């Protein structure tokens, strides 16, 4: 559907506002469903626990780690609670 068709069907007469609402609606669709998935890979560095995902991330579907022996990415589980840290690197 074109933007004009959406405007005609909904009875909107403001193009810029309609485009902004379409973007909001696409955001909501992507937040609630897996309509379009994107993949990003990050290099794991020794002794580093924190990694920054892509800026356009909306909702995480899954996280995998490369099993270098099998040469396959395998899904890992999420920790529900923060672990007890006994030894930490300087932040």
């Amino acid at each position, binding site marked *: *559907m*074109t*933007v*004009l068709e*959406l*405007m005609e069907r909904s*009875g909107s007469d403001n*193009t810029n506002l*309609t*485009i902004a*609402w*379409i*973007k*909001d*609606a*696409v*955001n*909501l*669709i*992507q937040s609630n*469903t*897996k309509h*379009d*998935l*994107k*993949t990003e*890979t*990050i*290099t*794991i*560095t*020794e*002794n*580093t*626990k*924190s*990694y*920054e*995902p*892509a800026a*356009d*991330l*909306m*909702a*995480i*579907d*899954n*996280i995998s*780690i*490369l*099993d*270098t022996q099998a040469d396959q990415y*395998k*899904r890992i*589980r*999420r*920790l529900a609670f*923060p*672990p007890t840290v*006994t030894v930490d690197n300087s932040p």
Partner: protein
Amino acid sequence: MSTQVDRDWFYRHNGKKIEIYRLKRGESKVRTDGVLSSGADELIYPDETITNGLRIEYTAFINPFVSSDPESTKDSANSAVTAPEETTHVNLNRMLGLAIVSYIRAMLAEAAGDIQKKEYYMRDFFKKISDNESNKRNVSISSAIGPFAVR
């Protein structure tokens, strides 16, 4: 070399970042009195560097506007439009396009101060999204008929 990553590696959300931990299995030790004692398991930071070792699959705001009709053009052949106009296509199928019509109607109702109407159209919006999702899954449900059931 990372092995058994699905068993020994974990992640955790911390604000905007993702924390990665590896489970280090407790090592058995022989005490001075000759008794074998097993150490406790502990979570440690990644103990090796793995190139492209972390893979994240996520939903994102991917090309909401395209130049050609997405229902007649393959996604890979369609080009993204960064400055959309009235003639630009929304990169969604017809069902999700109709959901967006409901969303715009909801926003118009809200702007007019009619919250009841807005709620009605928002419900319609989410119903169409769930209809679109259920269109991808065909599940048949069968149940046994009782021996004395009227046939």
